[in-house]
């Protein structure tokens, strides 16, 4: 069964074969507040791990979303700009921002699993 992984910057990653579905965690959504804007990446854009690929904006602030892996954007969630509540759904249910075809799936090994991420959240303010 596919597993969801997490980054320290609060990206959530759902792994579907060699494609990573990337969104933001409930913690990030809570910190941002209600979203008012999402800037999606262009399909075909090649990314290195750590590259900014999307921007999510709320009335409080704007935040970059970073790619957790090297790869290429194969799909952007075109429904999201018109339906910002999608971000609150789980990745598999439409909460993803972009799908990235990974060139090195072993990079996922450096990410946290659910339990590790929950422990990580406890260390934050």
């Amino acid at each position, binding site marked *: 069964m596919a597993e969801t992984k997490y980054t320290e910057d609060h990206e959530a990653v759902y792994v579907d074969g060699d494609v990573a579905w990337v969104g933001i965690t409930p913690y990030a959504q809570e*910190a941002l*507040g209600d979203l*008012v804007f999402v800037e999606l990446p262009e399909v075909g854009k090649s990314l290195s791990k750590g590259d900014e690929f999307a921007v999510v904006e*709320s*009335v*409080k*602030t704007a935040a970059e979303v970073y790619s957790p892996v090297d790869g290429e954007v194969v799909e952007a969630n075109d429904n999201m700009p018109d339906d*910002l509540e999608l971000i609150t759904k789980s990745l598999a249910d439409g909460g993803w921002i972009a799908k990235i075809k990974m060139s090195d799936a072993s990079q996922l090994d450096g990410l946290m699993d659910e339990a590790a991420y929950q422990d990580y959240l406890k260390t934050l*303010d």
Partner: protein
Amino acid sequence: MSAESKIVEMMEEDHKPEHDGDRGLHYEENLLWEKEHSDSSGVDLPEPAGLKSRTGVAERGNIGLPQVSEPQALRHFVRMSTWNYSIDHGFFPLGSCTMKHNPRLNEKIARHPKFAHIHPMQPESTVQGALGLIYELQEWLAELTNLPGVCLSPAAGAHGELAGMMTIRRAHEQKGEIKKRKIVLTPDSSHGTNPATAVTCGFEVRNMPTKETGILTVEAFKEALYKTDPDGADVAGMMVTNPNTCGLFEKDIIEIANLLHKAGGYFYMDGANFNALVGKIRPGDFGVDVMHINLHKTFSTPHGGGGPGSGPICCTDELAQFMPVPTVVKIGDMYKLETIEDRPESVGRLKGYQGQFGMHVRALSYMLSHGADGLKRVSEDAVLNANYILRQLEGDYYAPYADQGPCMHEALLTDKHQKEHGVQTLDIAKALIEKGFHPMTVYFPLVLPGTMLIEPTETESKDSLDRFITVMKDIANEAETNENAADHFHSFPHSSPRRRLDEVKAARNPQLRWKPA
């Protein structure tokens, strides 16, 4: 029903729109288009007869301008102006914005007919006094910053940033290094205009983390400087605000500036917070190559609707050849506005004429009326007032950097304690409105969640600070002790002309154009 919710209900009843709100000489006001129109008009013009438009449109239809008489138009705008809030109403503690009193002496001088009635296209020989004033202001700014190149024309702080970064870009172009120097370093606490300006000038931005300490450390700087080149030879420069947006002085700045210069980069200082340093320390002495100054903040010229702003830049001798034209130069006894022919290496002109002359008059008036010793005292009092607020409130609110020592001209708090009771920064801001104070800057800087940045400025009395502190303590106490704190706070404000506005809806579905109902 609790007494409180009953009051809330009564107030909601009170604030139904459509002129039922006209109570106690406080007026609701519709848009001009929504007024009931008569055929009255402020001006009667005869119908143009037999005229054919040169654009080929023979007849103009009704374009639907509202028809109101002169007193109706006057009352419309005056009524709306009563909904405004300004520093002339009361305390305005916006962090990073320096809303301080604008001395009326400045206004008197700026309105003097010999300043107010001159025209920028007059021959220079007839405006020698005005050019002399600009020259004098350039000299003052050069002295206060120890940066001898001064260009007064940028029309706002962000415009000054653009002028400064274009100047740095031109310097790299002249050295033939612009192709390899693509990166500009900024701390994550920077004003949003810093990275925006760097990108506008064709650079890439690299962030430097400051969350742990609130200031830029030598380690964080080195990591960013040498990240992709062992000598930092791909870095064009850095943009740093000092004191920074956490209200802290960057104490390692000399070492950082030295490392940057060694790598061949230039140091741009965002001078938005220069009001904490004036007369105490000169940016040219801690390695700044170019900076802007907000005359409308540090030197008390009006802004926030009263403007216009004015954002001169000051730079080193090396960079002065590249900064925008014009500056005022003195040749013998005569003053002259230079042109691009006088300084062909310049990035060129960024603003019509000489900049916001009325603001130059006000700023110099402020400097001369305070004198060198007075300006120093201004900085000291601004810092003293901010520290008074910080120490009074650090027990009630989380003050992330308070244990590092004194702050500079602004105090940083967050909603960390109140959030445990469901009360967030936005709720605290709305509660402040209810209790008669304009809120501080909220959710900025972005280094920590729920920040509140308070800049009291030197012009507030102790009495005014004490009243603000009392209300802030009351709010913290209410958040902690009210059993239903979250709901209680979410209902604020109650007494303002409008209750809590739906900011999310406004951002998601903005109505940018009025349409008939």
